[in-house]
């Protein structure tokens, strides 16, 4: 093995990284993942540039990926020479000046918008960033670099032991690599939890001139963004994982199948791949090992079902993304009929850590059957939303309350596993998060979407939402999925409209079972899960819709009415201005009228009435 080029580059990388950390020039880091940008990071960055330009201060701006607590975005970190990096949260463009003024003009650590510092010990009365309640219980293995390094800098990755896992793999036989992954106990992070080593072995043992590796980054689960964040924050980790997996299965070509909705992640991957080529980590005879491997990016075109292995392969082949029967499994006959392995982005991103630190180290985290750590996108009605990584076996309560900070209104449910998963009620809060316990409760681990809802969310509406989603995304091949999901949606619509009778609920359960049993792929066979679990754990809420024609969460449009309370209405006309359908009328200073036949229940009037200082709270929504 010839690692001279890489070794030389590594030295240079270390020097560059040390220069970043112990620089005589101030460094300003900006969380510039898609979420940070959505929160206004680009404006924040412009304000930083403007401030530095106006005052002629020298500093380096480093755009980094998402560090996880998205609710604190935009995040701005300042690192002055000889001092630790200090992080500021929710920094809008208008806040930049006062923060930078503190550092650059007053020589102090401003306390305004302060989140924490990245040093090892106590500093200037500032808490450590990783001691924040959202971060403290986490174990960051796959996310170790996200938000820390510049994702567009290979040198940053190299300086943090990047590609050492791959070098280690190259010094081993393929069987040893497979064995290490087996001993680590990692299970497929895409949802099903199938052990990667098992399909790798099947694939490797096939007689074939070519084998393929596909990284599945078609993160179609609505409400989940783990793969996007990982690729945006640390693209080399995933690519290094692909090299390791490619080496283990003897593949010559790899593909990253990624959603076109993730333009920034695609850009980061392309940059990272060009850098790999430069140092000989991609192409023919990598590092003189005799192993040749190249990677191509394939952009998905917007079909949830393409997360399914065989549909994904059909899509890469330029066909409609429809699943086919298995066997033969892709590991035997996949892309172009050749043995193909499809691994989830997170699984691949974890491999370098397993190889570098050892299988036993990784297996030290987690439970007996679910080893290691898992990332989750913790979203919905929790106070602290974002991307987290925790050891498996942690309870839902720890995740939702200790990390997420709980909900504002009373907790109602948590949906794990997206449209294929299940909705769990309060009684499951002490359930450990692992593959077995979640499956037992009727949910699944899935790819890691955790959507928390409170008493303000209607559970029937949520079941309808998921069913509508899977019905739209059904590829249409199997009748139970194509027609069954449509009927399930129709029944749920009737429930939400208060037009169902109690026999409908039984029909829904029966139909759910038929769809589950009669569908070829996981989309169909798991599509009824949200409806079935909500029916099981939240039946009284369904009954309220059916028998009382009431929506307890005041959500279902056809069961709620908007009303103006004349005694409270000041006649300020603000609601009249925001009503898009002209449903509210009335002269100034007199109570307004709301014409329910024109009202589309878009909440504009309600919000303006609640949150405008001049208006009262004269508009109510009732069920």
């Amino acid at each position: 093995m010839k690692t001279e080029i890489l070794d030389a580059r590594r030295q240079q990388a270390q020097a560059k990284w040390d220069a970043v950390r112990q620089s005589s020039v101030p460094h300003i880091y900006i969380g510039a993942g898609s979420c940070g940008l959505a929160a206004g990071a680009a404006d924040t960055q412009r304000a930083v540039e403007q401030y530095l330009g106006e005052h002629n201060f020298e500093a380096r701006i480093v755009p980094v990926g998402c560090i996880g607590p998205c609710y604190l975005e935009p995040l701005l970190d300042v690192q002055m020479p000889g001092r630790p990096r200090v992080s500021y949260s929710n920094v809008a463009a208008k806040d930049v000046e006062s923060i930078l003024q503190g550092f650059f003009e007053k020589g102090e650590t401003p306390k305004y918008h302060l989140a924490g510092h990245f040093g090892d010990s106590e500093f200037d009365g500032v808490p450590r960033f990783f001691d924040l309640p959202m971060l403290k219980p986490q174990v960051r293995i796959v996310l170790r670099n996200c938000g820390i390094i510049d994702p567009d800098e290979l040198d940053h990755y190299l300086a943090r032991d990047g590609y050492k896992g791959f070098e280690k793999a190259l010094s081993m036989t393929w069987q040893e690599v497979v064995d290490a992954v087996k001993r680590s106990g990692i299970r497929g992070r895409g949802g099903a939890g199938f052990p990667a080593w098992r399909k790798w072995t099947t694939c490797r043992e096939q007689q074939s001139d070519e084998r393929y590796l596909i990284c599945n980054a078609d993160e179609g689960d609505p409400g989940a963004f783990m793969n996007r964040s990982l690729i945006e924050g640390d693209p080399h980790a995933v690519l290094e994982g692909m090299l390791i997996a490619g080496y283990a299965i003897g593949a010559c070509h790899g593909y990253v199948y990624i959603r076109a909705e993730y333009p920034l992640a695609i850009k980061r991957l392309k940059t990272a791949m060009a850098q790999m080529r430069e140092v000989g980590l991609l192409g023919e005879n990598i590092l003189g090992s005799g192993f040749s491997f190249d990677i191509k990016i394939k952009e998905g075109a917007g079909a949830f079902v393409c997360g399914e292995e065989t549909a994904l392969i059909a899509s890469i082949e330029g066909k409609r993304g429809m699943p086919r029967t298995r066997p033969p499994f892709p590991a035997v006959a996949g892309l172009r009929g050749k043995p193909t392995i499809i691994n989830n982005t997170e699984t691949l991103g974890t491999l370098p850590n397993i190889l570098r630190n050892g299988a036993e180290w990784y297996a030290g985290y987690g439970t007996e059957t679910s080893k290691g750590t898992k990332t989750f996108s913790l979203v919905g009605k929790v106070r602290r939303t974002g991307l987290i990584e925790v050891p498996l076996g942690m309870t839902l309560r720890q995740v939702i309350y200790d990390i997420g900070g709980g909900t504002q209104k009373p907790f109602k449910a948590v949906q794990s596993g997206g449209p294929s998963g299940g909705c769990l009620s309060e009684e499951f809060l002490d359930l450990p998060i692992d593959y077995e316990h979640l499956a037992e409760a009727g949910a699944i681990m899935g790819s890691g979407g955790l959507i928390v809802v409170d008493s303000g969310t209607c559970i029937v509406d949520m079941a309808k939402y998921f069913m509508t989603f899977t019905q739209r995304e059904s590829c249409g091949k199997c009748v139970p999925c194509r027609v069954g999901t449509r009927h399930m949606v129709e029944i749920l619509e009737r429930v939400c409209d208060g037009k169902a009778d109690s026999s409908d609920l039984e029909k829904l359960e029966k139909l759910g079972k038929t769809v589950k049993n009669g569908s070829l792929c996981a989309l169909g066979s798991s599509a009824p899960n949200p409806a079935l679990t909500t029916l099981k754990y939240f039946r009284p809420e369904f009954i309220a819709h059916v028998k009382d024609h009431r929506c307890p969460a005041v959500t279902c449009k056809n069961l709620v009415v908007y009303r103006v309370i004349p005694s409270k209405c000041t006649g300020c006309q603000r609601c009249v201005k925001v009503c898009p359908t002209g449903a509210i009328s009335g002269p100034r200073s007199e109570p307004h009228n709301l014409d329910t036949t024109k009202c589309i229940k878009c909440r504009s009037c309600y919000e303006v009435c609640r949150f405008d200082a001049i208006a009262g709270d004269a508009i109510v929504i009732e069920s």
Partner: protein
Amino acid sequence: MISGDDISAIRQEFKGEREDLIPVLQRLQEQEGYLRSDAIRSVSRWLKMSENEIFGVATFYAQFRFHPPGEHHIKICLGTACHVKGGEEILAMTQARLNIKPGETTADQKYDLERVACLGCCALAPVVAFDDKFHSQMSVLKVQKLLDEDRNS
């Protein structure tokens, strides 16, 4: 604009295999904003596939459009997090204000409206994208303000 048979620029980027179909259609849409039927005819001759087959593939995927887009593209995210945080109300309000349904373009060709399954910024839900710019933690009122600002600019 691509006239009739002129897909020569795109031809040079690909080998012309069947597997290239989806990336070719993506490039076509990137250039023109939608898939024109005569461009599809050219692709059909080049890749030696029937137009039916190409339409079959293109209509399967949500990304492809078959009508010219409006000047501004408004995407309302209805991922789960956006749904439970009020995305549906934002969609209802936008529909009423623009007087179009998702997938349609306003009569003055100024806006088109799309409901998308997930933009991946779930922690900052609800999310609305105006052209390429994502706006997070939206509400019906904030979106109304965006529409007002855009109309007045």
